[in-house]
């Protein structure tokens, strides 16, 4: 579906027929709910479209009159006529930078993994400066340090694991500080990598007693690995050992035989393969296709004190995410983020992750264009799912108001508004149901979901 709608198309209904204004009816809109935002050829064109729509709407408040006008003169003449009286280009530029940012020089922290792609590439590829910001992206040593530096306000916003802002807001493993997520950094993009000596042990039932590394307790990596093990009848707390290990140390530990495998963010999995120490058991996509991985997060305080800066930052990230979701841009992105200033990894490794044509470590070349994908919309049902897993594994105890927490942390409403302004088409609802390893999750019944698991920590 194209998100760019030509305002000079006579048959297009500019007075919205549905919430987002892109479908003829609410029903059609619902059908498109599962669709992702897909970028058009250029962001400028998209903005032009949004601005032109607004102008046309202002000039012809009545739909019939506009249709008649367009039919009689044709779209190109209309555009020329409109441009004469109204400086569309200038208006577009002004629109792209709506609301002067309170603070232009910002610091955004990131962890050097491909999940941070939109945050990182927005700097060398000019997405931040396009939205009037001067952003310094700062590489950070680990998730705990990212958390502390963001809470300390050294960073204005940061790359975090998707469950981290929820954990911080709830005060798990930190002082409770209200945090918010305006955009998801990436979906999919992780994998289970095992040491070469286990290449014949592909059935998880044989994994009893093995040692696995995960990057952080409050991470999708932790929840997905636990889920995967539990579905195969292993209790992740008693049958295997899970260790928190920073990503770069994972490959070194795998080589040194200290761990048997890991569920890690990408470019780490591929790096282990590239160096010949491990192979890809499965992609995390095979556990849950379309799962969120990392998020873009800021404190509530930053959002209230500098709302325009925050909006511009979110726009830049959403823009970059839209650009990254196009397969043909991926090679260019890999080159932009590979240098020492950013991820600091061989370009071949990043290219394999981003393009999805990769060596599996066992001598085969596999292709999966959605190995890592980008979709910024912060589904609140994702947050509910994470909360169910926090509950399942004993990270939170007692009653949880799943919906309230999800809605407080995942800013779906604001992002939806922003995306609509940018000419993208966000989904109408912030909740969707999805399946994890074939088991359907209903965001309306989180307690039943938690109770349905046989293997979980007794609370």
């Amino acid at each position: 579906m194209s998100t760019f709608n030509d305002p000079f198309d006579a048959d297009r209904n500019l007075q919205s027929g549905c919430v987002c204004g892109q479908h003829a009816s609410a029903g059609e809109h619902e059908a498109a709910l599962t669709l992702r935002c897909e970028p058009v050829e250029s962001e400028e064109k998209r903005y032009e479209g949004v601005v032109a729509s607004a102008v046309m709407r202002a000039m012809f408040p009545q739909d019939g009159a506009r249709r008649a006008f367009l039919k009689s003169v044709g779209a190109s003449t209309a555009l020329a006529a409109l441009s004469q009286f109204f400086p569309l280009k200038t208006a577009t530029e002004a629109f792209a930078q709506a609301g002067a940012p309170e603070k232009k020089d910002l610091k955004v922290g990131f962890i050097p993994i491909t999940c941070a792609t939109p945050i990182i590439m927005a700097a060398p590829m000019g997405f931040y400066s396009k939205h009037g910001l001067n952003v310094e992206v700062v590489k950070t040593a680990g998730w705990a340090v990212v958390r502390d530096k963001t809470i300390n306000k050294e960073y204005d916003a940061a790359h975090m694991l998707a469950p981290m802002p929820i954990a911080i807001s709830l005060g798990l493993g930190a002082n409770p500080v209200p945090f918010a997520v305006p955009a998801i950094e990436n979906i999919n993009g992780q994998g289970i990598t095992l040491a070469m000596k286990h290449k014949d042990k592909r059935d998880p039932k044989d994994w009893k007693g093995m040692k696995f590394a995960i990057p952080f307790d409050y991470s999708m990596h932790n929840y997905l690995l636990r889920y995967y093990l539990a579905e195969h009848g292993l209790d992740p707390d008693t049958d295997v050992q899970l260790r928190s290990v920073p990503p770069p140390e994972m490959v070194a530990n795998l080589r040194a035989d200290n761990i048997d495998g890991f569920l890690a963010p990408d470019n780490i999995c591929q790096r282990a393969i590239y160096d010949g120490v491990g192979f890809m058991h499965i992609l995390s996509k095979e556990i849950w296709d379309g799962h969120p991985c990392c998020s873009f997060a800021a404190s509530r305080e930053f959002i209230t004190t500098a709302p325009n800066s925050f909006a511009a930052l979110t726009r830049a990230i959403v823009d970059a995410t839209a650009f990254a979701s196009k397969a043909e841009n991926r090679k260019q992105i890999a080159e932009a983020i590979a240098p020492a200033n950013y991820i600091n990894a061989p370009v071949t490794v990043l290219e394999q992750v981003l393009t999805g044509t990769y060596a599996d470590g066992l001598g085969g070349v596999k292709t999966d264009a959605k190995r890592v994908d980008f979709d910024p919309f912060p589904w609140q049902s994702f947050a509910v799912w994470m909360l169910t897993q926090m509950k399942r594994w004993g990270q939170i105890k007692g009653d949880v108001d799943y919906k309230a927490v999800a809605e407080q942390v995942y800013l779906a409403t604001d992002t939806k508004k922003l995306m609509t302004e940018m000419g993208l088409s966000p989904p109408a609802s912030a909740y969707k149901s999805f399946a994890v390893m074939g088991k359907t999750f209903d965001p309306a019944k989180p307690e039943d979901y938690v109770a349905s698991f046989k293997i979980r920590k007794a609370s």
Partner: protein
Amino acid sequence: MNSSLRLRAGLVSIVLLAAFLGIWHLATRSTGATTTMSPEYAKLMGLTATQGKSTMPGPLDVGAKLLEHLKRPFYDNGPNDKGLGIQLAYSIARVGTGYLLAVLVAIPLGFLIGMSPLLSKALDPFIQVLKPISPLAWMPLALYTIKDSSVSAIFVIFICSIWPMLLNTVFGVASVRKEWINVARTLEVGTVRRAFTVILPAAAPTILTGMRISVGIAWLVIVAAEMLVGGTGIGYYVWNEWNNLSITNVIIAILLIGVIGMLLDQILARFTRMVTFPE
């Protein structure tokens, strides 16, 4: 003969270095293609997997890379990629600040404790407990309470380099020969004057030995601190290159850390010689 001994020692050093480099070179040679793989697959793999290249770089790799770094030590490619010269300068500045603060606290405090046997006994258990704490243990606490990562790094340098200086100052001041103090007392020298003209010169060599140990510790600590805090400095550089699993650059950083540490130690050794007196 003294000069011939030096010459012979130099020769032995060179032979040892050559032997070390030779063994290193032989041990890290690549073994050639190990397994057969399709060219399409091989293109996606690293040299270790395809050529059997050792995961440890050889001396030639390190030498070439070192030369490259020495040619442009001060480049600046943005916040996360700066030349080695800049990284070292950041580290030295941090160590300098933390260390000077420690000197300002440790020496006067050590002096007071050393002159009062009561205080010395009372504070000893605290000092003994605090002394062996590793910098990495202080780091989370510092980050959490100070809420500023660069100040935290300086604080960790401070807290780790203070103890040897303090203990040595206490020891130096407390063990000034009784005769000298008694002579000063007979001549009715005031307390302040006695401290500066009798005790300080007498304790100076011990104090400077403490300072020399401390600067070594401060330089040890900075790498660990910067690995955690990130941003700039040689410790961050090591972490960043480890992230890329680039052992070549890690070895270069280790070499430079050693050289700078030696220089710092030599500077203080020279000061120590200046205040040493024959008894």
